[in-house]
């Protein structure tokens, strides 16, 4: 696999914390890899297993869900539900022989701009190490 692999990563970010933290990272001009593209949702509780699988089906190399800190969910428990759904998708991926690390759940507050950048870095580095999604390599072959 070539060094130039640039993974395509989609992040589902809740409006109240993670999305706001991403904006703050912008205000603070923190740089992070451009591989991460954000879809805003009202609460990570809105993220469906189906949405996560859909992303992989489409060829996502990595997917993550970012919500409020546990206990701080704007909607009380949405982020806890989201965590369980991410766990489910991890299991599904593992069952299908795909690295479960390609999907992750993160929690951060809206004041954590630096943490947002860190997560984007972390996830991009992780996926780069894993290489392209097996769905994409087969397509190429």
């Amino acid at each position, binding site marked *: 696999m070539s060094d130039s692999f640039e993974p395509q990563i989609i992040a589902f970010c809740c409006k109240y914390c993670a999305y706001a933290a991403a904006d703050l990272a912008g205000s603070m001009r923190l740089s992070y890899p451009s591989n991460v593209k954000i879809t805003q949702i009202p609460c990570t509780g809105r993220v*469906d*297993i*189906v949405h996560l*699988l*859909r992303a*992989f*089906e489409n060829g996502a190399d990595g997917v993550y869900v970012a919500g409020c800190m546990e206990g701080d969910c704007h909607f009380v428990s949405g982020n806890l539900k989201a965590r369980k759904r991410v766990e489910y998708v991890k299991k*599904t*991926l593992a*069952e*299908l*022989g*795909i690295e479960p690390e390609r999907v992750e759940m993160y929690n951060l507050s809206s004041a954590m701009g630096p943490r947002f950048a860190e997560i984007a870095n972390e996830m991009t580095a992780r996926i780069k190490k894993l290489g392209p999604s*097996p*769905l994409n390599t*087969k*397509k190429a*072959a």
Partner: protein
Amino acid sequence: MIVADRKSLNEILDMVKSYSKILVVGCKGCVTVCNVGGLKEVQVLAASLKIGRKKDGQPIEVDEKILERQCDPEYVEQLKDIVDNYDAVISMACGVGPQFLSEAYPNQKFFPAVNTTFYGGAVSHGIWEERCAGCGTCIIHYFDGLCPIARCSKSLLNGPCGGSDKGKCEISKEVDCIWDKIVRKKIAQGRLADLLHITPAKDWRTARDGGPRKAKREELIQNG
């Protein structure tokens, strides 16, 4: 309701490994309520199969469909115009569904996506427990509404056995000893003496032991 569990993805993938276009059919009945075979699970399975096959370089086409119930011919018939468009059909209903489908469409191949496990209910969200064994002769009124057939590991009628330990069954600490519950309930109601009555051996002919069963309601049957 009937409670089921989804089969592992690999088992399902193996069933359909030689097909490239399949239909996944869910059921809006029990399996929706026990979160195993409703439209959402149909979508999850469809997506998982597509991911699994694409990963192996053998993409598969999967369509999704939900029926009101798969245990009534009229609903099953709703597939008639599309069923032949597929190499195979996966049913996410209980064990009844794929059989009704098979009988209705003798030329098509049907596969079950779930293991049908028991009759029970949700004790809390996400946890289901067995309550009934479908033995055909209900006797729970003798036991204050608690069924020793379904809930005693040995289906004892004059329990408990010697394996009851602090209210738990000897087969697992996860399993309540139903006889412990029966006895305690009797004590609480001051009716422990009821248990002096020996329950005679059960007539199992009404259960699976008597062969496949049929239920008829004469007044409902339309004699054409």
